[in-house]
């Protein structure tokens, strides 16, 4: 457990104290089995933008940037699950109500959406907004 925690802290240590960093890295060296090296493929544009963040000193190196980003992503899991639950509910409620509009002209499509919007407003949303 301890080695994993140290591995997670390594990127922060860079900013705290160079000696601490050295110690952590030594410990990490012992536990290298806990770290996995992987190759990733990224769009060139994303790599270029990442380099800017590293050059600006926000991250020590590319690995740190990726590690931090993944950690942030994991923290967002909860929000993503919530987002998914809401979206699932709306999709479930609208199941079978879809209509293929790909054959409609622009004006026909706008007219149809207008009708949908007004219907939804009348049936569902009119009394939905809170006072305040």
């Amino acid at each position, binding site marked *: 457990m301890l080695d994993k925690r140290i591995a997670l802290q390594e990127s922060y240590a860079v900013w705290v104290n160079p000696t601490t960093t050295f110690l952590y890295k030594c410990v990490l060296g012992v536990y290298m089995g806990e770290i996995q090296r992987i190759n990733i493929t990224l769009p060139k544009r994303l790599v270029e933008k990442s380099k800017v963040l590293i050059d600006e000193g926000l991250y020590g190196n590319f690995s740190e940037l990726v590690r931090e980003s993944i950690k942030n992503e994991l923290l967002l899991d909860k929000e993503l699950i919530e987002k998914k639950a809401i979206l699932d509910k709306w999709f479930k409620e*609208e199941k*079978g*109500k879809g209509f293929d509009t*790909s054959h409609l002209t622009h004006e026909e499509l*706008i007219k149809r959406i207008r009708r949908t919007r*007004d219907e939804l407003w009348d049936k569902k949303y009119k009394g939905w*907004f809170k006072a305040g």
Partner: protein
Amino acid sequence: MSYGIKNIKGGLRLVELILVLDSNEYIVFLNKEPHLLEKILYTESIIIFVNELIVREVLRNINEEVKKEFYAFIFKHNIQMSHEQLPLSLIQKYQKLGLKKGDIGIAAFCEHVKADYLVTENRHFLNGKKLKEFKVVNLKEFIDALD
């Protein structure tokens, strides 16, 4: 335009523009018509917000089979979903401006999320009424302004 770092659901992010895309933009895109929408989707400094009304409008105007694509689309492009109730004062504000009934909810939503632009192909939206809170443009106009 509202530049700066904003605290959105995805964490702190350098944001230049907040957009609300009207349902017609998603529908046209999902119907695979030639479209400029991709240019916006891959611009990192833009955040797109969507709400329940827009999502349901899209779902009622696309083929059942395309719905899966729409679902994936929302996640892939990290579109910010808002399901908060809108303040009644905002609704009343746009009611007084004489907006068509459904448009009241969209305009109030735009102001609520502090959108810079509402992008829509519905040129009758707002019927020529000028608002200071956000601009109403079509996709081509927005892309031209972006360039």
